Structures are given as structure tokens and as C-alpha cells.
């Protein structure tokens, strides 16, 4: 069964609120009904068909084509199916998603996977700030699922993360894993400054370099080869992340913190020596 293809009709320069573009909403609809789904373009509601050329009836597998930099909330709250985006995607991609898979060929805006509870979000380009984070005021961010970024991620990756896995192939901006409650964050490039500030539990694993030293509110614990890390790294390798044999066999320095809060989190730094 073929996928439903939504091709952007033109350069969408105004913000588009596209929370209706999810497999949950589109699956089972006739082509006309898909085209009639409401979408907020600028400050006016418009039918989806005005902005996208729709091919095929509604399926649980969607393909989006064109530059969607200004298209927000694609896949928001989705529970099943797949979305493949050939091009950039805008803010809040896959936020609050609970199942299914989103893949993006290029870059995505901020808040991708915010409050994600399940499913998989795969970004082959770079991610904006607040990847897998909590919205302002909320006590918890990501509570499940997997986010894989081949490029870099901007500031505050995994803020207030409660569960789940985030892996960044490149570098991160400031405050990666800040206020983490639990969960795992892997960074293969440069780990941004002030990693784990305010974290209670959870693991931040640096497999590349550090932008700056570990915060003084983290205590050095030991140097060892964590067994659980093997398991994670093999999964990440299977998913195409840049895991090397040295990562699998190497030693890691463990720091615990943040002692300003509960202090049961850890930062594991791959020891290249």
C-alpha cells in the first residue's frame, strides 16, 4: 500500500500550524477529506489542500515534500504510522508523540520531540534548541521514546527529561541534559557547556569532547567500563549512530551530580587515553 504524499505547493513563508498532519488524523480519509483538513496559515484557517498537493487517499504512512521550515507541529501527538519529511521541518516536530516514527532528511526547528512519550524521531540534519525538552512551566519533558540526530543539536537538549533516549551524532549547545530527572543522553561530538546542570538522575554520556569542564557541582566518582553502556551502544550502532569499537571497549570517567539537587545523576566521559 503506497503512502500519502503531501507536496508543498509553494514556498510557505508564513507560519503554518500543521498539527492536523498526523497519521492518526489522515489514515482512512478520502483524498478530498485530507485536502479539507483545517490548517492555520498565518492567522487564517485554510484547507490543507490549499497549501499542499495531496496524492492518494489517507494512509498511516505519510510523505511530506518541500521546504517546511515554517510548518510547525507536524506529527504532534501521533500514536502510530510513519511520517517521512524530505526537506526541513519547523518547530515542535513530533512534540507529544506517543508512537510511530518520523524521519527528516534535513534540519528541524526547536522543540522537536518536546514532551515525547513514545515512538522514534530520526533527524538526519541538525536539530534546533530544546530537543526532547519540557515546555515552559512543565515539570517533565520527554517521558519515553527515542530521538536520534545525526547532525548537531542546539541548546538545552533533553531539559527536564524523565525517561527515554536521545542520541546526538554531532555537538550540542549549552545546558545539555539540564534538570534531567532520568533517561539517557548520548553525545558523540562536543558536549556543550554546563551539561547536566540541576540534574537529579539519569545519564549523560559524552563520547567525543567537552566544550568546557564538568560543573563544580559534580563529583568525580571513578573510571570504569559500565556494562549497561555496551547494550545502549550496540543499539545505537544498529541505528546508524557513529559508535566505534573503541567506544564499546573503552573506559569512562564517571561524575555524579548535580549535588545542588538530588545528586544521583551521572556524566560518563569516554576516556580517550
Amino acid at each position, binding site marked *: 500500500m503506497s503512502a500519502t504524499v503531501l507536496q508543498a505547493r509553494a514556498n510557505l513563508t508564513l507560519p503554518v500550524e500543521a498539527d492536523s498532519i498526523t497519521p492518526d488524523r489522515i489514515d482512512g480519509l478520502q483524498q478530498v477529506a485530507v485536502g479539507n483538513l483545517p490548517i492555520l496559515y498565518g492567522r487564517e484557517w485554510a484547507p490543507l489542500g490549499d497549501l499542499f498537493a495531496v496524492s492518494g487517499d489517507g494512509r498511516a504512512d505519510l510523505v511530506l515534500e518541500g521546504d517546511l521550515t515554517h510548518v510547525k507541529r507536524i506529527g504532534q501527538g501521533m500514536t502510530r504510522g510513519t511520517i517521512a519529511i524530505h526537506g526541513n521541518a519547523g518547530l515542535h516536530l513530533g512534540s507529544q508523540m506517543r508512537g510511530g516514527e518520523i524521519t527528516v532528511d534535513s534540519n528541524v526547528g526547536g522543540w522537536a520531540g518536546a514532551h515525547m512519550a513514545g515512538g522514534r524521531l530520526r533527524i538526519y540534519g541538525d536539530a534546533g534548541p530544546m530537543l526532547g525538552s519540557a*515546555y515552559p512551566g*512543565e515539570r517533565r519533558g520527554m517521558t519515553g521514546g527515542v530521538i536520534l540526530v545525526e547532525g548537531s543539536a542546539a541548546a538545552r537538549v533533553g531539559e527536564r527529561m524523565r525517561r527515554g533516549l536521545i542520541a546526538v551524532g554531532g555537538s550540542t549547545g549549552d545546558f545539555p541534559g539540564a534538570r534531567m530527572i532520568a533517561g539517557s543522553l548520548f553525545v558523540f561530538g562536543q558536549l556543550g557547556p554546563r551539561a547536566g546542570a540541576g540534574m537529579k538522575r539519569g545519564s549523560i554520556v559524552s563520547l567525543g569532547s567537552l566544550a568546557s569542564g564538568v560543573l563544580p557541582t559534580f563529583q568525580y566518582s571513578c573510571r570504569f567500563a559500565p556494562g549497561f553502556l555496551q547494550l545502549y551502544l550496540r543499539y545505537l550502532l544498529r541505528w546508524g549512530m557513529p559508535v566505534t569499537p573503541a567506544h564499546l571497549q573503552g573506559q569512562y570517567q564517571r561524575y555524579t551530580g548535580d549535588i545542588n539537587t538530588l545528586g544521583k545523576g551521572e556524566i560518563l566521559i569516554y576516556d580517550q587515553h
Partner: protein
Amino acid sequence: MLGILNGRVYDPANGVDGQVQDIWVQDGRIVAADQVPNREAAEIFDAAGLVVMPGGVDIHSHIAGSKVNAGRRMCPEDHRADTGAQNGVTRSGGGHSVPTTFATGYHYLEMGYTTVMEAAMPPLLARHTHEEMNDVPLLDKGAYTLMGNNRFLLGCLGHRQKAKARDFAAWLLEASRGYAIKIVNPGGVENWKAGKRETDLDDPVLGWDATPREIILALADISTELGLPHGPHLHVNRLGQAGNASTTIRTIEALDGRRTHLAHLQFASYGGGGRHPLRSAAAEVAAAVNANHNVTADIGQVVFGPTTTMTADGPLEHTLHQLSGSKWLNNDVEEETGGGVVPMNHARRNTVSALQWCIGMELFLSLEDPWRTFLTTDHPNGGPFTAYPEIIHCLMDREFRSQMLSSLPDKAQSRCGLAGLQREYSLQEIVIITRAGTARALGLANKGHLGVGADADIAVYAPQLNWSMMFRRARLVVKGGRVVVRDGQVVAVCPGHTLCVTPGWDEGILPSLREHFEQHYTVGFDNYAVQDDYVPYCEVIRCK
């Protein structure tokens, strides 16, 4: 000119209980039918089969000011799930428990409310309060000026300078453009600033030769001497603490006939404490209120769901923060009061929240005089004001209430007397506790009734499957003679009035006030009072 014809009219202040009548409106007032010269030219609304009553009057709600705005700022999550877009008439806005100013006005109007009183205004922050109230469209509003922990006032009371205290209270009401005296945890907030956690009625106020009892009685006397339209609005000591019912009852007894309004009585009707678990003391408190006709009370009913608590009672918010682990904002308003904000979730499965719901219901059903019992949620502390229709449904439908009660934890059910109360409110009684009674308690002679000369603030409802649905959206709302809501939608927007009082005071107080400001305030005395520009739609309510 407008005619609302053939509706079933509920106007308890004028003894009308469901009779079919016509209501005529001209120049913003209700007029007699024979005073309408040219009925053919009037806009006619056929209200046959519909229920007509005065516009709602909310006696206690936190809708504007520094703590409300602080609640908005610290709870962005409160706004994400509840947003409203502009529609050509209304502006955009949102918020569940702390709506934006515009949304506050629209939501109240859609439910048929036309007057709302902001329950706590720190005088130093009065400009902010008035600016926000000006932004709340359509509603008439007033604000109660906080005085129970004002250091200048405490100094007057400590030196037994009652006349000076009276003149100061009058000056402060005028300077802040307030409507009534508000007393919050008298002396207790000041004591908390000095490190004392809890203050009872006869505990000393540290650093001042006064007790909470003396503060309450003095301000009640001052309120009477000044002839204020609304008696002192009292948030008693030990609010929210287990076992505080004894404090509430002793406070009522201490008032000894002085006219006073008890705010959010539910939060002050708790038994237990110490080694004993929290239980309802609603029956004891209700008996005290029933026996003292000088006292009116609003309930502060808890409704289930997330909300944002906010009060000038700083120590109470600190306690809530410790209990819930939720985020907390504390505010010290120099020389005058304190304040705090803590988001909470009144969860149905939580025994304490469930018991609070029961205690509120028990009070509603145990307080005998609807003219002295008023519907509030202490918005947003007990829950948002948008939950009023659900509360009305519980009061009018015993079966629905029983279903609600049976869904609550057993411990909550067993620690209150709600199951044994069979009373159902009549529609006339609902009209009293939501508009006629509140208007009377506020001294608003032109509101809360549909008699000739009253403000043309009118709500028309269509009977629905249940009372909650009926009161959720009014079929028609008239504000000041103008139709502003049709079929539950705001169709026209205009500013509301700011209600305030000007009781008059002796200018001899000014030198000592100026000296006090120069010594203790960060604001110059000449810059303190709220200027006319901040209250462009001011309506002065006459003191007796």
C-alpha cells in the same frame, strides 16, 4: 431601548419567583413598562420559555493585580491548553485557572456575570491592579484594599490611636481606589516575616502592641464608622490549617454583632489537627454563622483539577509549597502585606482535596440563610470561576451530588457529614447566592435585582438537560443596557466601571503619613496615590 418579553423572571430582591414578566430597558437602566414611550421602536427579545435574572455578581475572585499576573508568568502551562483566538469582536486570550484579562471578561460574561470584585489589592501595587482591571472588558469591577498587616495601621492600633487608624484606612481606600477593607491573616503575615509560622487570634503581633483580634475588631469598627458599603472582608487566621475551625468560631464570636464578611469559609472550617486527621468542622462553623446575623460568607468551593493558588497570606502559600513540592513565588510588599503563588492540583483521588470539596458542599447545605451565603471558588484558589455551573448543578441536584460524593475516597466521605444532607437549592436560592445576595452584601443598590432604576445588567438562560449546561452559557446577557452576549458568544465589547469609595478623612493625618513614607517606603508619598488616569471609568459608590 430593549424589551425582554415573556421570560420567567427570578428577582428575589423584589419578591419575583419565576413569574412570567416583561423587562424593559432604557438608557442603561431598567424602567417600568408604562415609562416606555415608543415600544414599537424597541429591540425585542422574546424570552418565552427562558429564565431571566439579574447579571451575576461575584463577591470574591482574584482576577487582576500583581499576584494574578505573577501566576500567569510562572504557569505558562496553564495557558497552553486553553486558548481562544480573536474573532473580530473579541481579542485573543487564554488560560485555565489564571486567564488573561480579556479572557476573564469574556468567560464571566458568557456565564451571565456582570460584576466581579477583585479580592485582594496591595495598596502599593494598586496601579497595576487598576491597569489590569481596565483591561478586563465588560465587567464592573472593584477591589478590596489590603490592610490587616499594614505597619502604619499596626502602629496606630499599638498606640491606641483609633481615630488616626480610621483616617488612615479612609485615606488608604481613596489613595488605592479601593472598594472595601480587606483583612488577610491579620498580624500573621507580619509575624511570618519575623519568623513565626502560625498566628492565632490572640497571639501577639511581634514588634507591635496588637493582636489579630484587636486588628479585626478595629477594622470592623472603622468600616462601620466610615459607612462603607461592604463590611470588612476577612480572611481569618490559620486559614488552611487542620483544626482552624476553632479560630474561625472564636473570630465570629469576637465580632459580637459587627458587620463582617468571611471570605472562602471552606478553607476555614477544618477540624482535626495535631495527632488527629483532618476532618470537616463545617457543621460547627455553619452553626456559628447561622447564629450571628452580622456575618456573611462566601464558600470558596474546591473543584477538582489543576489550578493556581494565590493569596496575600504568604505563610499559607509557603505551607502549600512544602506540602505539594510545587513551584512557589513569595512576595513581600513593603510595609503593607505579603503574598505568594503556588500551582496545585486538586485531585479527586487525593483525600485532602476530596475532603475540601465535601466541606464546601456541607457549608453550602448547612448555612441556612442564602442571603448570607455566596457562591465562590475563591478563584483561582479552589478552582477557576468557570466551574460555577458545575457547583450549581451539585447544589440543585441531590442525585448528581451523591454520585460525585460516592466517587471520592472513603476516608473523605467518612470524615464529613455531607452524605446526611438532603437539601437541594431552588433556582431562586441560586439567584440569591450568585447575584441578589452578593449585591446586597456589597451595598450595590443598583445591582442584583431587576427593579425599576436598577442597572440593566441582565442574564437570560435557556433550560437545558441539567443545571450545569444551563448556567455554562447564557442565551442573552445585557450589560448596562447593551446586549453583549448572544447564544453564549460575546457579540459586543465595552469597558466596565471601576467601583470605589471615597469615605473622607481628616487631613491632619498627612504630616505623620508623609514622615512614615519618607522613613520606610521606597515610593515617595506624592507618588503613592493612584491618579485619575488609572481609573477612567470610575463609579463612586456612596458611603452611608
